[in-house]
């Protein structure tokens, strides 16, 4: 039933296809050590990360997937619904490889850094500081730092040969890239010294003038924040002082790790205007930061097995079926209902090929098997519905193609892997495996829609 590939008039309508993103070689390459999935919210980033991790594992690699905020059932499907901030081995993996998965617990990650880098007394002081408690419990920004910190930790353990990272659903999707830098500029800043100033009063005489200026500053800060909070902040900063060097070093190291040749960024999007606009922004930002972009994963792409029947034509045919039955067409005229086989000009004019017996039931017979007018009407109504459904699908296809073409025009250099839309969500490893197959299927153009549509019912 698949359309003849030699006739693919729809294909000509597309811009020259973007480069195809071949994911299996990327997953198989031992040089690939980190894959970062980024993209705006709601495009299937986490699912993509999990599916890639599973596929790489089943192709023999030892993989860990770091997810930030997975949907509950997705987490359950990988057995990581308990938050313990440690990678857990996922059961049910085929083959030699291993899949481990973890969900980021940012407070725990932060606490662990403190515990690892401060002596016990100082660590206790920091952990009980109210300012610290708020900071670590997940205010804007913390998640990004901690995701990067965790990535650095996992990489440093040398236990896995591939780390797949999901990124936080940030307001600005690239916050996680900015996080190390921002931390760095803060730690380098004068503010730290101001905050530390009271603790250092009574230093050398030469510092006195500076200290006057600084205590004015702390006065202003105190007025703004309230004395207690300022004191909490100061205690926190003082307690953390010894750790800042380490923070800084690690932030810089993580940033460099992201630029290293073993890292591959995948921008994830859906064929919708906003998601692709964000994706274009990502592509530009990654280039500006010298981050290695592997390509774009385009999720939820629709296809149709009947793509040569246009929306307009389908709608016209549907109206045709719904209206003209006013004139009574009695039984025995079914043969007249058979229209000439000419709707598709790319097809050789139909010289009625002999009707091969179809599963034992012949198609329309010329003697016209008498049909009950009522049931005929309801078949027509149903067929009209099917045609309307098809018209809707074709409109969706056209819309997706337009948004996609716009992206391709702007960024023809970006390789694209398309993933056919699934009707439901993914709940288990089989579902993830299916997504992995689709990711690697490597057929970006739509005329193979037949395959996708029938797969779509899975």
């Amino acid at each position: 039933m698949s359309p003849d590939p030699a006739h693919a008039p729809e294909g000509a309508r597309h811009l020259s296809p973007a480069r195809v993103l071949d994911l299996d070689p990327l997953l198989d390459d031992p040089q690939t050590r980190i894959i970062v999935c980024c993209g705006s919210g709601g495009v299937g980033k986490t699912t993509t990360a999990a599916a890639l991790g599973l596929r790489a594992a089943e192709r023999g690699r030892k993989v860990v997937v770091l997810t930030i905020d997975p949907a509950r059932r997705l987490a359950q499907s990988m057995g990581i619904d308990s938050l313990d901030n440690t990678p857990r081995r996922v059961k049910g993996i085929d083959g030699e490889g291993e899949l481990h998965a973890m969900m980021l617990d940012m407070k725990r990650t932060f606490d662990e850094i403190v515990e690892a880098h401060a002596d016990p007394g100082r660590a206790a002081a920091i952990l009980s500081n109210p300012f610290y408690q708020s900071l670590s419990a997940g205010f804007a920004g913390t998640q990004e730092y901690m995701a990067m910190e965790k990535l650095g930790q996992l990489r440093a353990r040398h236990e896995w040969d591939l780390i797949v990272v999901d990124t936080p659903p940030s307001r600005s999707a690239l916050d996680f890239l900015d996080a190390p830098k921002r931390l760095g500029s803060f730690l380098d800043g004068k503010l730290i010294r101001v905050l530390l100033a009271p603790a250092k009063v009574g230093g050398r005489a030469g510092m006195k003038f500076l200290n006057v200026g600084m205590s004015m500053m702390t006065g202003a800060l105190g007025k703004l924040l309230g004395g207690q909070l300022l004191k909490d902040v100061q205690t926190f900063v003082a307690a953390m002082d010894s750790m800042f060097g380490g923070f800084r070093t690690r932030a810089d190291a993580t940033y460099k790790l992201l630029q290293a040749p073993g890292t591959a960024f995948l921008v994830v999007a859906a064929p919708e205007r906003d998601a692709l606009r964000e994706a274009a922004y990502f592509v530009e930002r990654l280039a500006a930061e010298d981050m290695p972009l592997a390509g774009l994963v385009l999720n939820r792409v629709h296809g149709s097995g009947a793509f040569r029947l246009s929306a307009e034509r389908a709608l016209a045919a549907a109206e045709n079926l719904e209206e003209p039955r006013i004139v009574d067409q009695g039984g025995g005229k079914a043969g007249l209902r058979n229209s000439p086989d000419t709707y598709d000009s790319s097809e050789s004019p139909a010289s009625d090929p002999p009707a091969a017996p179809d599963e034992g039931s012949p198609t329309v017979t010329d003697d016209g098997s008498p049909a009950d007018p009522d049931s005929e009407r309801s078949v027509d109504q149903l067929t009209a519905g099917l045609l309307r459904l098809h018209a809707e699908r074709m409109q969706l296809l056209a819309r997706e193609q337009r948004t996609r073409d716009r992206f391709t025009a702007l960024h023809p250099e970006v390789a694209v892997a398309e993933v056919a839309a699934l009707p439901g969500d993914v709940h288990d490893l089989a579902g993830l495996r299916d997504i992995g197959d689709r990711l690697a299927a490597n057929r970006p153009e739509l005329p193979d829609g037949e395959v996708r549509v029938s797969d779509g019912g899975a």
Partner: protein
Amino acid sequence: MSRLQVVSGKGGTGKTTVAAALALALATEGKRTLLVEVEGRQGIAQLFETEALPYEERKIAVAPGGGEVHALAIDPELALLDYLQMFYKMGSAGRALKKLGAIDFATTIAPGLRDVLLTGKACEAVRRKDRSGRFVYDYVVMDAPPTGRITRFLNVNDEVAGLAKVGPIHNQAQAVMRVLKSPETAVHLVSLLEEMPVQETADGIAELRAARLPVGRVIVNMVRPGVLDAADLEFVRTVPRTDIARSLSAAGLGGARRGQNAEKLVNPLLAQAEEYAERYLLEHEQRSALGELGLPLHELPLLAEGMDLAGLYELANELRKQGIA
């Protein structure tokens, strides 16, 4: 009707679109609304097809009946300097703090201050009055952070008020919280008829309720038109393929014999119907899950031609018809 309408939702559900349509609907018949963006993505400017919004309230649309929609994209850094100047007469200190990197610290790193500034600015707009004592804006609509962060975002002032136990920030945080927890505020959640957004909506509502924040309505966005109904879907499973081929042929789509064009359409069309049936079932389940939340439930249609300015007015009209505005 609450004067501060907060619109949240899972990423990808179209909360910015719904917020904009709501602002437009509320402005109808001579009202003034302010549409506030807090995430710095310039989504509002794109929707209204205007250039990027500065940190300044400006008129971006007129509503039927002489209403006006104004928009503001809040920049946390400028908002902080604003505050320092307006409330504490700390203009010069503000500049000095900026030089130190304190403003950057406050708006990007310090716990929650950024969120305090964003909610604070929105509440200020809600309470602002002109010389004659009338409210400057009849309604303020906020395009808020996604469901996963909304409770923390709105509740941040409580947390900050607990951290900063005295001083202007403490007072400010408390004042903001009084507005947010009052009937003056309603938090709406945008969802889709899909499993993950519905689950997130349910979780979000539970969190909002636990924090005693006023939950408003659930708005299901991008609802696809029902093309086939349950009876059709039942029928499609049993109908002989040859009947459909014949019907397609009667509609002028080619021959009904095997290998002819109408007949070749049957399988792909039935495959699409099968997908539709699966989605139909899922949507039905999700609709009843949303129904169990015990909140007013509204549906907005998927616009076949994609989202544009005309579509925005269409959705605003739909919201009015459903009595939301």
